[in-house]
């Protein structure tokens, strides 16, 4: 498969702050590629540069052979963008929004009308197409937001955290639609900080943190980096003393078989060779400190573990 996107040493600085640090990767035509990373990792900035919204500070990227710095107009014809924040006109209906944005992508006449009807069907809003967007639920608005990105049948679709802040049902619908679009041959660059979404959707994943691409590959390739280790996740009650939890995690590092640890407000992740073997010591140490463990998860190697392995922090940090 040829590459539809090639990124070379892409850098973006805002003043002294380096939001993206010399990242390089390529996306093959027809694949779903996820950029996985916590908030502030540089995902949105990367998409903004690739979609020609911002000029890069250094490096370049070529989309369908067109340079984002040299030929942005040609790039814009090839790509579709679904921004993280809703970018719609609330006082226009879904049909009017789609028609307007279609015209911005040089569609017109009967072709535009037909395409708008098609996209409305695709996002399941045909019956409410003539209601103003401001009357829609958050999930419906998200679907219109995605529909706008699909109007001109882009070869490469950028989706920037499209499921943030929506209900599980709408989230499910969006993930299914991403798969359906990919099934129709559309290449997708999907950014998320939800490990589950990246795992479900992606052919390949790039893990980004502090503006750097710290890992890249298929899920199998990435999880191999953590070896055969498991992750033990301890969930604590909300009232537990943070200092006691921190003390527990410090103690856990001394347990045989523990490789890495991380703690957040009410949970702790412990990577170990065999999670089952460290479960008993974990409970004992918690009891000694008067900490009540609410629940326990044992996870086989996954992207969360990869991120923890690479950064020493959980993905949700």
């Amino acid at each position, binding site marked *: 498969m040829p590459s539809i996107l090639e990124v070379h040493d892409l850098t973006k600085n805002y003043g002294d702050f380096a939001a993206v640090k010399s990242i390089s990767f390529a996306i093959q035509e027809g694949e779903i590629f996820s950029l996985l990373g916590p908030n502030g990792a540089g995902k949105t900035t990367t998409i*903004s540069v690739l*979609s*020609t*919204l*911002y000029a890069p500070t250094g490096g370049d990227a070529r989309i369908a052979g067109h340079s984002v710095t040299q030929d942005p*107009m040609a790039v*814009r*014809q090839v*790509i579709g*963008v679904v*921004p993280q*924040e*809703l*970018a*719609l*006109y609330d*006082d*226009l209906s879904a049909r*009017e929004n789609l028609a*307007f*944005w279609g*015209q*911005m*992508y*040089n569609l017109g006449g009967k072709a535009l009308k037909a395409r708008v009807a098609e996209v409305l069907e695709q996002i399941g809003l045909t019956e409410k197409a003539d209601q*103003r967007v401001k009357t829609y639920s958050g999930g419906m608005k998200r679907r219109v937001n995605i529909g*706008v990105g699909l109007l001109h049948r882009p070869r490469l679709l950028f989706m920037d955290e499209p499921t943030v802040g929506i209900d599980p049902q709408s989230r499910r619908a969006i993930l299914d639609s991403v798969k359906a679009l990919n099934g129709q041959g559309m290449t997708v660059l999907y950014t998320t900080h939800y490990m589950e979404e990246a795992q479900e959707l992606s052919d390949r994943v790039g893990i980004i943190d502090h503006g750097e691409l710290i890992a890249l590959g298929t899920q199998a390739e990435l999880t191999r980096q953590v070896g055969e280790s498991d992750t033990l996740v301890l969930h604590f009650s909300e009232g537990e003393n943070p200092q006691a939890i921190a003390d527990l995690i410090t103690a856990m590092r001394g347990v045989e078989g523990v490789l890495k640890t991380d703690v957040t407000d009410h949970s702790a992740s412990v990577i170990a060779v065999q999670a089952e073997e460290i479960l008993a010591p974990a409970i004992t140490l918690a009891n000694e400190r008067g900490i009540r463990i609410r629940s326990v998860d044992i996870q086989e190697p996954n992207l969360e573990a990869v991120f923890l392995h690479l950064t020493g922090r959980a993905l949700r940090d």
Partner: protein
Amino acid sequence: MKKLLIIGRKDLTLAFRDRTALLLMLLAPFLLTLGLGFVTGRLSGGSSSGLGSIPVILVNQDGGQLGNALVTVFRSPDLASLVTPSDAADPAAARQQVDADKAAAAIIIPAGFTGSIIPAAGAAAGALPAGEVVRIELYTNPTRPTSVGVITSILDEFMGQVEVGRVGGQVAVTQLVGRGLIKPQDAAAVGAALGARQAGANGAAAAITLKSTVSGSAAASFDPLAYMAPAMALMFLMFTATNGGRTLLTERNQGTLPRLLISPTSSAQVLGGKTTGIYFTGVAQMAILILASALLFQLRWGAPFAVLILILAAVAGATGWGMLITALARTPGQVSTIGSAITLTFGILGGSFISTESMPVWYQALSKITPNAWALDGFTTLALGGGLTNILVPVAALLIMGAILFTVAVVIMNRRGLMQP
């Protein structure tokens, strides 16, 4: 160009779906006009006018029937509240008075004016005077265009009557001679009699007074609403212009501007489209207000084509200001605040509440930075019967104002990176 129109049409739609904006664009100016109409008596049966006591200097060197008739017209009780005439003997002194802004205009009636139109009794055969008609000079004060418009209108009305009488008399005498009803040697006497009658001799002065004209004389019955309606419409046009500019910053915040900028649409097209949107909305607002006042108040705005041209120019001027304010502001809230202040300031400065002609010269000069002042001059001129040629100066001024302000706004926007997300 197509995308400019598409973006403009979208903004026009959004503007007319915004209830708050609609209140300020249409309802507020309409209600204020209505209220002022009652205050001035226009809608309650009174006769108070927005203009009054226009100082005009009369230099009557003619002393004949027509010259005296013109002076009588300006001193008639019908015009007493509208004009304040004074006499002068020396044309140069009268012009100086106008130059010193002591009067809105000087009307200089040269010697021989009557004689050039009406043959003297017992004149030689040929019936009517030979040679060119001696012309009345109207020396005007450029800082008082509205008052000048009133004076010009009164004078035009008078001259129209005289011309009708002159040509009518000429035709009548020719017909009478041609049909053998009078002898050629009597033509002069008959022509003189006709002319004298037309000029007000034999107690027929009413024949050339404004009161007796069929049209009702626009000048004599100047409608205060013809001043207030455009004044209010123009004041709230500034609101529309600044509110339109505000949407540029709003779109930036709500993410639609970045989305536009990553579509195959250049930033120049986006900016042009937003400007077109403000322009469309302003034109629609003015057109609706003018049509509504014409239908509901039977207000005569003047020649429709000239009114249209003036609307287009006025909206261009206001749009320029709207874009400049947007370029200088940092947030939509700032545009709203500055816009409200500018709307009110320009309303006061531009004569929306009080005619600037009663203000000092410096005030009148300052008022010219506002589209309100120029456009109001134009609308008043048209309401007083003027045509397109009479409003060329305000139209040109408004277009130049719009072009300069838009250019400055674009430069500032580029420097500030306003068309960047």
